[in-house]
């Protein structure tokens, strides 16, 4: 047994009850994870009994950095929290700050925000459906879905000038108006996307090999998901009606008619269909909002100093609830900005689902929550390992590597 060996530093204290043989590391670099994260899986044979997450590999210290930057600059910084749901970050941060001011957001700006946010949702959901195909080994679905995703990206590029980081938001408004004569094109493209989404729904419903990969995997009860504070599609696929667009409307969601999609089945297959359904809803919302776009100004210029106070805002990102809390002491820079990303909120649920599954299901379940570890990690500080290695010369780095893996070889020299 391993009791007589001194425990390694990182596995001290709390993990003592598990012997080292039962601990299987998953990550930080793993083919199923596109971003570096580390999960310690405690196994009993093939079964997982406990998962301990260790995030923070790509942290950049955004919250600390925000305290030393002007309000406007922070908007662009928080937009870069994530490459996929970038707009909704700046939207939520903007709403939190706008709450501290006395200005009213123009109605046209609210509609434009809704349009961009929904386009982003379509883009994010398509990305996820494609990746699910990729992880299930269905390359064709992946290629088709990502091809159709270009439609959204091209529209976003035409509206905002950039495909990913739209830089559309300003405090109390948006920076760019909708381009002239885009209405027909957007409506026609949205119709195309609805057709495609319906087709993909058919595929994931009938294709035998796809069904075998997704059915009956990743089940969790509604009570557990509610207790663990799941958000977004992860809450809706077990039947919780939790959608901030509906529960606490922001932007123009109280003026654009829509209904949220929930599912009762509660497996990965249901999640796939739910995301495609949400895409259809979003496409219809975009069409409606474009047709009913009100006239008026798009922006109110506000002074760079934000009045003192504290305010929070949340909104429904493609992956779930995004939460921002800002505290101002009346200066040019914020006192404190707290941002919480949906992956962070969904992680406890994913860990719960993993318990009792076998190792083979780990990638599928972790993918199912649409993880964006880059988002989640916005918070911490310095990447010590990489920074230290950075200052080394190539030769030093090589010697370190050899020493690390083959200490006996180094001794021989």
């Amino acid at each position, binding site marked *: 047994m391993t009791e007589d060996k001194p425990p390694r530093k990182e596995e001290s204290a709390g993990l003592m009850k598990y012997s080292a043989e039962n601990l299987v590391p998953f990550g930080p670099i793993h083919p199923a994870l596109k971003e570096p994260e580390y999960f310690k899986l405690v196994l009993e044979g093939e079964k997982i009994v406990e998962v301990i997450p260790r995030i923070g590999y790509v942290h950049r210290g955004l919250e600390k950095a925000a305290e030393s930057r*002007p309000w406007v600059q922070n908007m662009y910084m928080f937009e870069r929290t994530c490459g996929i749901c970038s707009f909704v970050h700046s939207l939520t941060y903007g709403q939190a700050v706008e709450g501290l001011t006395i200005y009213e957001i123009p109605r046209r700006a609210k509609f434009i925000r809704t349009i961009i946010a929904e386009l982003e949702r379509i883009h994010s959901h398509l990305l996820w459906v494609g990746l699910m195909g990729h992880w299930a080994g269905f390359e064709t679905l992946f290629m088709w879905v990502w091809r159709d995703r270009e439609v959204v990206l091209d529209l976003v590029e035409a509206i905002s000038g950039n495909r990913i*980081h739209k830089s559309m938001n300003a405090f109390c408004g948006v920076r760019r108006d909708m381009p002239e004569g885009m209405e027909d094109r957007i409506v026609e493209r949205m119709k195309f996307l609805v057709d495609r989404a319906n087709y993909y729904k058919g595929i994931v419903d009938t294709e035998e*090999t796809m069904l075998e990969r997704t059915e009956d995997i990743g089940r969790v009860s509604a009570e557990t998901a509610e207790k663990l504070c799941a958000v977004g599609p992860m809450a809706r696929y077990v039947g919780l009606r939790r959608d901030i667009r509906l529960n606490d409307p922001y932007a123009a969601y109280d003026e654009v008619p829509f209904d949220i999609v929930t599912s009762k089945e509660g497996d990965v297959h249901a999640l796939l269909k739910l995301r495609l359904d949400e895409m259809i809803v979003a496409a219809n919302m975009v069409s409606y909002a474009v047709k009913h776009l009100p006239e008026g100004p798009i922006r109110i210029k506000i002074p760079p100093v934000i009045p003192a106070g504290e305010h929070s805002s949340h909104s429904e990102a493609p992956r779930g609830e995004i939460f921002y809390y800002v505290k101002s002491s009346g200066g040019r820079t914020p006192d404190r900005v707290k941002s919480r990303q949906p992956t962070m909120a969904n992680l406890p649920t994913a860990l719960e689902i993993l318990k009792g599954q076998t190792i083979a299901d780990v990638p599928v379940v972790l993918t199912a929550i649409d993880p964006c570890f880059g988002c989640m990690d916005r918070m911490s500080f310095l990447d010590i390992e990489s920074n230290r290695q950075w200052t080394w010369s190539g030769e030093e780095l090589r010697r370190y590597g050899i020493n690390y893996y083959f200490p006996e070889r180094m001794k021989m020299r």
Partner: protein
Amino acid sequence: MPRRRAGAAIPEMFRTMLEKPSTRAYPYQKVELPARFRGKLDIDPERCTGCQVCAMVCPAGVITMIDIGTRKVGDKELPVKRPVFELSTCIFCGECVDNCAFKALEMTKQFELATPHKEDLTMRKALTK
């Protein structure tokens, strides 16, 4: 529940085969850029007055102001500043362009900015004036 079968995607696959492929063979076939595309930043040195607004709003710290001389206002000597752009850190948000009151800044359509030398991306155009 629809009928489950293997190979549900085959008809669509043949249809796709007959369509035009959606790949754009980029370096051989130039991409058409939308009117609002935000590419490399450019400055018109004639119009720049050195007011520093762009340097203040830039979220990425691209712009540093450099003293290039002095001028007399009344009986005071004031420094004359001009911006230097470190474009390798630019995030293409366009905030400086929006805030430039003299319309000296502009986002061009140029996006092929890869270079082996980081110094190539330092724009000192405004200094020469």
